[in-house]
């Protein structure tokens, strides 16, 4: 059911994204672009002692990528970079079909995207940006 994908949680996050904006002094940042859709996200992180203290994003995109980014930022703020990466891996595995994976909280709302493989990239876009950002060190 398409309503499983475009449920209230996704639409709310898409309409009122959390952590939208920019950081005064980010330690890491990255830009991701999906040439297929034109979805774009710039992610900024403030990492201290291995912990993501603050996070912000700017960009334009579809409801799925915007909601995915918003949800990601709320979930990884306060987590260590290793925890964040591990969560991203679980999420990617789950939406590409691994049904064994534990409940991922709000990320579950995005799982129905697996029925629409062309759109999976929209949901993983922020997680790719996160990996890029963590590789970037200071910008």
């Amino acid at each position, binding site marked *: 059911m398409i*309503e499983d994908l475009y449920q209230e949680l996704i*639409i709310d996050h898409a309409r009122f994204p959390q952590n939208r904006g920019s950081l005064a002094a980010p330690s890491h940042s990255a830009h991701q672009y999906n040439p297929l*859709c034109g*979805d774009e996200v710039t992610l900024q992180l403030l990492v201290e002692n291995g912990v993501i203290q603050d996070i912000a994003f700017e960009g334009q995109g*579809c409801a*799925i990528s915007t909601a995915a980014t918003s949800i990601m930022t709320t979930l990884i703020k306060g987590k260590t970079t290793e925890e964040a990466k591990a969560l991203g891996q679980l999420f990617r595995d789950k939406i590409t079909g691994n049904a064994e994976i534990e409940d991922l909280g709000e990320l579950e709302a995005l799982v129905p995207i697996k029925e*629409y493989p062309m759109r999976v990239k929209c949901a993983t876009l922020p997680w790719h940006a996160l990996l890029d950002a963590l590789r970037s060190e200071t910008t």
Partner: protein
Amino acid sequence: MLTANFPILEIPSRGKRLAYLDNAATTQKPQSVIDATAHYYREQNANVHRGAYWLSQEATALFDQTRVQLANWINAESSDEVIFTKGCTESINLVAHSWGMNNLSQGDVILVSRMEHHANFVPWQQVSIAKGASIVEIPITDLGEIDLEAYQNLLTGRVKMVAIVHVSNSIGTINPIKKMIAMAHKVGAKVMVDGAQALAHLKVDVQDLGVDFYAISGHKMYGPTGVGALYGKRELLDAMPPYQTGGSMIRTVSFEETTFAALPDKFEPGTPNIGGIIPWASAITFLEGQNLLEVAAQEANLAQVLEKQIEQINGIRVVGKAAHRAGIVSILADWTHAHDLGTILDSEGVAVRTGHHCCMPLMKRFNIVATTRASFGIYNTMEDVDQCVAAVQKAKRIFG
């Protein structure tokens, strides 16, 4: 019913009736083309031009027959002027490289319209970089029509090539190419027309148009994928060097030099897509059996009805309002992104394309990133329109 000729239309999509509205991307294939494809591999498969045996002779005859049939269909003076390629994109690249690299130099100008598909834009841009020529935009109006006055002012003696799409794949505009070609010829420029979207909807007469080069896509005119053609005026093609070299396109080869075959072989090295080109003839036969004027009117009418109905939904507008338009509707909703709309339509069995449609400069012209595009073909009916409208209404309910 025409739809009965297209078996794929009977197959449900996500459990719903398929409303196939992505004809600008590729058209579905009639049973005759499907049969001809199977028949070729079952009974006619052999390499062309080479075999000393009956089967190869038969395959070669059929292969050349498609060329003759296509040449007649577009009213080329001779079938030698029809070069087989793997698609419209390759046809344009052939001209950009072979003609462009040898006829353009520093200071020359290539005019390219703002509504070109990347296929008739990027090759010219790359050639202009290589040759020090400049590429200049022919602007379009807010309605999505060529600004003919601006075009006239751009036509100076420095213009060597004009690249123009016959029918826009993004917004459906049918350009006045006959007039534009005549205008270009007055200053001695050649014209490359991208006809990818035209052949399935319009009767094209290359001699009447006076066009220098015309690029054709097989899979957008109910034919197989992987086949296309380039029409070029004989004197131009004769003067051009080969685009790619190898077997089948030579007269003699020695360590010192190679002499090339005459048209059309000069531009067709290697084994062509025989299994696509032979069934392509069945697609042309199919079109020959239609009244294209009526077909085009019916497609445009469906597009107009769709446009009228969805524009009544709050926050929806259609980009591209040219007076002469093919059955293409490019939709923007201010309450959702093109891709979300596309996915919801997909869930209702409605197949549309979302994105920039390989026309990023055009999107920029309208300050947009992407549209949701419905494009009509010969088999579409009011039922498809209704299904699409209902799906857009559903999307509106979801996004509020």
